[in-house]
């Protein structure tokens, strides 16, 4: 197994290298000048030129790429052009927001998704199954940003129940404010994941229900639900691990738009603003950090698979 992990890690090196070059090229392909973003719309052409020179943007693209790699080689992820802050510290500062959002949405997703999946499987082919599956399908079919916008209009602007945006840090504002600031975006994110998890859980449970011990339990009239719950637990572990893995890799992906809608100062917002401002080092560094995290998470998920499901061998 250790050899397997090592092999996966060694495969990750070329992947990350290609990824880094791709992100670099894509960023530098974007029209628009970061020096203008820094100088402001009213700066003179000369002033913008001065900034370009200072930032080294006038050098050949290949030189800039090599310089970036030489910095990366010594563990230097660079400094953001706009924030004047090291990329790592910019990411670390925003990580709690994105992690909190993922955590709250996961806490909503797990019970809801598993319950829906089990219920649908148990009463399969009935109207209960059909309606649960429609709900699950709706979860993956609704545009998150639209649900978010409507939610802000209704719950925040109209009813005034929740703050419409912004993040209340747990250590500064307390649990209630923290939760209130996250509940809307977390539910919107959870909608998608619940749909996803419910569908996976349902098909995993259908396997179990066909198996002999359930039939035996039914025949004997012993507490069917206890048996079911036991097996449900075991058999939903794999979908849960899958969803965990997806959630973690959605850390940036899924929250990019939602953080934008709810003005949450997290990683997704950081990257989108970085792209909009052509903050090359920020976007490149952050994407690379998360590309790396993505690779590691995938390996971890595979390892966990082998632990929860003895049928899966690590290769």
């Amino acid at each position, binding site marked *: 197994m250790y050899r397997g992990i090592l092999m996966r890690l060694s495969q990750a090196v070329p992947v990350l290298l290609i990824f880094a070059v791709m992100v670099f090229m894509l960023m530098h392909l*974007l*029209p*628009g*000048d*970061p020096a*203008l*973003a*820094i*100088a*402001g*719309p*009213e*700066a*003179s*052409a*000369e*002033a*913008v030129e*001065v*900034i370009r020179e*200072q930032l080294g943007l006038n050098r050949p693209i290949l030189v800039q790429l090599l310089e970036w790699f030489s910095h990366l080689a010594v563990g230097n992820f660079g400094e953001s052009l*706009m*924030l*004047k*802050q090291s990329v790592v510290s*910019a990411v670390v*500062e*925003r990580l709690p927001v994105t992690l909190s959002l993922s955590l709250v949405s996961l806490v909503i997703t797990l019970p809801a998704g598993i319950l829906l999946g089990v219920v649908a499987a148990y009463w399969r082919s009935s109207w209960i199954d059909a309606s649960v599956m429609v709900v699950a399908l709706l979860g993956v079919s609704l545009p998150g940003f639209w649900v978010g*916008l409507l939610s*802000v*209009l209704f719950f*925040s*602007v109209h009813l*005034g129940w929740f*703050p*419409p*945006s*912004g*993040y209340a840090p747990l250590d500064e504002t307390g649990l209630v404010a923290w939760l209130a600031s996250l509940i809307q975006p977390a539910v919107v994110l959870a909608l998608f994941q619940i749909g996803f998890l419910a569908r996976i859980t349902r098909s995993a449970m259908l396997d179990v229900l066909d198996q002999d011990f359930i039939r035996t339990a039914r025949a004997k009239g012993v507490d069917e639900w206890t048996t079911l719950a036991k097996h449900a637990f075991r058999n939903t572990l794999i979908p849960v691990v899958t969803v965990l893995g997806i959630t973690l890799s959605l850390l940036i992906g899924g929250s990019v738009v939602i953080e934008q*809608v*709810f*003005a949450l*100062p997290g990683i997704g*917002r*950081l990257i989108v603003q970085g792209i*909009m*401002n*052509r903050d090359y080092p920020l976007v490149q560094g952050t994407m690379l950090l998360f590309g790396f995290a993505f690779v590691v998470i995938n390996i971890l998920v595979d390892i966990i698979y082998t632990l929860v499901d003895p049928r899966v061998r690590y290769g």
Partner: protein
Amino acid sequence: MAGWLERAGLTVALAAMLAQPALGAAGGKAGDPARGGAITYAAAGGPGALDPHVAGSLVALEVIHHVFETLVAMDESYNARPMLAATVQVGDAARRFRFTLRPGLRFSTGATLTSADVLASFERYARVSTNVALLEDVVGYDVPDARTFVVRLASSNAMFLDMLKSPTYPLAIVPADQQERPGREVDVVGTGPFMLESWDKDSHLVLRRNPDYVADRSAAGPDGLAGRKTAYLDTVRYDFVAEPAARLAALQGGTADAVANLPPDFASRLGGRDDLATLRVFPYCQLLFVTHAGNGLTAQRLIRQAIQAAVNVDDIIAASGQPARRNASLVYPGSPYHTGDGAEAFYDRRNLDEARALLRQAGYKGEKLILQTNATYSYMRDAILVLAGQLREAGMNTEVQVVDWLTNLTSLRRGTGNWNVTSAGFCTQPLMGPQQWRAQIYADPHIRDLAGLDDAYRRLLASPEFAPRQAAWRRIETLVLGEAYFIKVADLGAVRAYNTRLHGMAPYFFQRFWNTWVN
């Protein structure tokens, strides 16, 4: 008329612009201002850096003007008025400017401000500022004593003080030990009524009342960014909230006491609440169409004029959803440079027949005309969409390109990309007056070579008398609008809102929190 300008050797007609009296604190019905209290302001975004010398973004400047001060600043009517300077003597045919500092000035660290700090700030500005052009004509500085600072210019510049009042890239006075700091890395220490207490980039910052603030006691009250400013509030917290809906809800939910610009659509919801009030700021920005005279179809003057002839301003204003006023000129009504009737000939032509005639004359054969705009500022996008409809009606084949803000800005400033017309919003240039349009006009590479423009700008800056300067500006405006490089659409306003527990809120370009208080 303010008495600060001593006419040593030269009458500076600039004084004519100072005629408007200072507005006192408007608003609050409730009693006398009292010290204390903390408020939260939902700003439209957060600053990247708080270095006045390189600050061009409005969200950064809104904070900076609470913390830093300049020698000369904008007053309530956006004209120049001394702030850290007590007096300014203009001499040697507007080549020599002698600033005498107010006595007893201190930084928020408690250190005394002297002319050495002023010198260091000017020198740093010349080195790092985005607006170095301001000082490019300087031949030298003199520091005869701790309260006197002299700037010597190579050539006459009657508008130097108007340039020095610039609220963008403000030439704020920072402690002398900051001189060597690179751009965007200055310590946030100024002489303003507030000081920076904490700053969580991307989330919020907190300003605290500066206990060492030395107010300008020669003034009766606050006057624009200058005058006698008093900080009553203990702290002002700026929350960075990009979504307007979120700002509105923050105000309604009580988590914010004041909010930055709201779309009028949202402001309309405040009607039912008597504890909430709106603040209408006018003028705020100017909306223009800029044609690309260096690219394809719009390189032809006739095509540009055909576009100008097809514009129907009222429809564009209606669709922009912004509070807007008609104004043909590039300066605001009320400015001595305003040339209403002169610019009227190029404004709101809504003459489709003439547009078609011009197109025929230009030999237009249905080639594609590309209109560029951005999605960040929805009023710009909506204005371009309406323009596209009007041009189609006039027989033009249009294509709309919506790009992100920075691409749009780069297109406009560099003339890059394939486009013919773009929407543009100008905010501080028209506020500050004709001299400020220069950088803008010259920044558009395709306008630079316009015959007569250089000469007119030279006369604008060098003429000691007001009349020839006004004439020079008329000439500039006629050239730029007549060639349809710029097509003026409207003056735009802004709507902010606040909780009425906050008193002393007065409309101004920058949201100010001095001379505001809570009960």
